[in-house]
């Protein structure tokens, strides 16, 4: 049923253009020589990339993004993987439905709502305006991605492999370590990459829970654009996209390798 191929192709291209247009609009401006975020571009230069790496506010924000991103990735990957293992194989119980809803809730609850709640809570526990607070906040919204990816990987594992390992003498802990986790690894890595990307991209929560010392790149872009619209934003966006595409390629690569080896 490879029918209507031409109309599909035309329509597909239109949708692609539709989705890509905002990116195409902003990315060339990363290389402008002007101090305005405007077309036409007078001359090309990499001055805004230099600015990113030398201006104190931008340098700090890059370091913050990396620290918070790595922290979030570690925390979310561990919690999310354990949660996925715990949810596993209970797909028909009511409890499972409840837990799954809870784990996926942060994916659909508005960031504004979460942000307000966290602000209130963090103030009470002294987490407001700390790195730990930001990491915890980002972890809450990163966990669903880890759970979804690891759950998918676990669903792909034949239970009989684990039964076979048990019958050959492996205790449950050894089965987990030697069979289940190695086979779920591609999902865990995908989840970790998504968690990292989520942390990098997050703005709204960061606005609520982070102090001036925890400004991330996304947060910095957000304020910059509201204060003065400088092409540094376009340069930061460019770096973001390059990083995202690299991470995406990594995930695809891992998935394909695991498909091949399974």
């Amino acid at each position, binding site marked *: 049923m490879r029918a209507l191929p031409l109309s599909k192709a035309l329509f597909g291209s239109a949708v692609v253009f539709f989705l890509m247009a905002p990116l195409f609009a902003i990315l060339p401006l990363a290389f402008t020589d002007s101090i305005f975020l405007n077309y036409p571009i007078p001359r090309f230069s990499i001055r805004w990339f230099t600015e990113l790496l030398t201006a104190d506010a931008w340098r700090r924000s890059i370091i913050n993004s990396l620290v918070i991103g790595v922290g979030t990735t570690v925390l979310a990957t561990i919690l999310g993987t354990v949660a996925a293992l715990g949810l596993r194989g209970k797909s028909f119980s009511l409890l499972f439905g409840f837990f799954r809803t809870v784990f996926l809730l942060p994916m659909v609850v508005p960031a504004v709502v979460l942000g307000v709640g966290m602000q209130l809570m963090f103030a009470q526990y002294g987490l407001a305006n700390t790195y730990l607070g930001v990491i915890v906040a980002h972890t809450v919204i990163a966990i669903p991605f880890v759970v979804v990816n690891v759950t998918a990987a676990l669903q792909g594992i*034949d239970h*009989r*492999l684990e*039964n*076979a*390992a*048990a*019958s*050959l*003498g*492996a*205790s*449950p802990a*050894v089965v987990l370590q*030697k*069979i289940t986790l*190695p*086979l779920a690894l591609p999902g865990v890595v995908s989840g970790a990459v998504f968690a990292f990307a989520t942390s990098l991209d997050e703005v709204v929560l960061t606005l609520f829970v982070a102090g001036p010392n925890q400004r991330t790149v996304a947060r910095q872009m957000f304020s910059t654009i509201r204060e003065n619209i400088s092409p540094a934003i376009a340069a930061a966006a460019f770096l973001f996209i390059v990083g995202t595409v690299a991470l995406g390629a990594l995930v695809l690569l891992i998935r394909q390798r695991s498909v091949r*080896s*399974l």
Partner: protein
Amino acid sequence: MSNAFIHFDKVSKAFGIMTVVDDLDLTIGKGEFVSMLGPSGSGKTTLLMMLAGFEKPTSGSISVAGKRVDALPPHKRNMGVVFQNYALFPHMTVSENVAFPLKMRGASRSEMVERVTKVLDMVQLGAFHERKPIQLSGGQQQRVALARALVFEPEVVLMDEPLGALDKKLREQMQMDIRDIHHRLGLTIVFVTHDQTEALTMSDRIAIFNHGKIEQIGSPSEIYDRPRTQFVAEFIGETNLLSGKVSSFNDGILSVILEGGQLLRVTSASKIEVGKSVKVSIRPEGIELGQSGLGENELRVRVSDIVYHGDHLQVQVEAGNNPLVVKATRQTLAPQIGEEVTASFSPSQCWIVT
């Protein structure tokens, strides 16, 4: 069954309101090859899973070599299990797969190498140590699974339809190989299958499962030649079932009057009361067709269909209102459709089923 090695004592298993194994007793001797045969859902696989420890009985107990095992987790039961889909670890090489149970038992490096090499040679895969499972054919993967289940010298090997995924020729080859290994190593093997040929050719005894119970257990020839129930007679091979009433019993020979009025003489080990309704099972290969009768039982029949099967002809005939199936060898002259012939069979080919 010389000595009871594996013993199921009143074992039941229910999933919710579904009783899958129903108050079942079964004793398996050391070194025996017992097949569990039955339709899907008859409880044979559940019984195997309980023996392996993957499922817990709802009630009853399971013991091996005199010790109760039903509370032991699977990794403490020391049984080799071979699964239908082989269940090889995809992220390990053939060697690593086979060495896995030895590693779990803390074997030394040199002992592992020696025993893995020996068992892979035994299953003729000496050249495949470093391959990943995905690089092997179905038959080779099954051999690795077998090697892995044997390498730690378990006393019991459980097989869950291990040959179901292989094609016919390979399946027959593997049947011979497993039979051979069973004889050589003196293993106790419990083998689940839904393929009657597999069960008939490999087993010391066959247990026929139906609705969570064992309908009959015995040697292949006991099951085939002396089925106890209609279910067993129809499940193993093909059969013709004729209904009638016992009219007399003399010297081990029953006389049965069929519903159409014909009289059959039937051998029977046990006396059955005169006047009782019975079913007589006659295997298609036990009937001969000819212009005149040959045996003690003769029925006048009309040929309704002849189906070519290569090595034999399946002839469908009508005896009064009873349709009968006859397996005719190709050497004898085949009758024509519509012809009237005589179907004859000796009393020893007839068997009473309940």
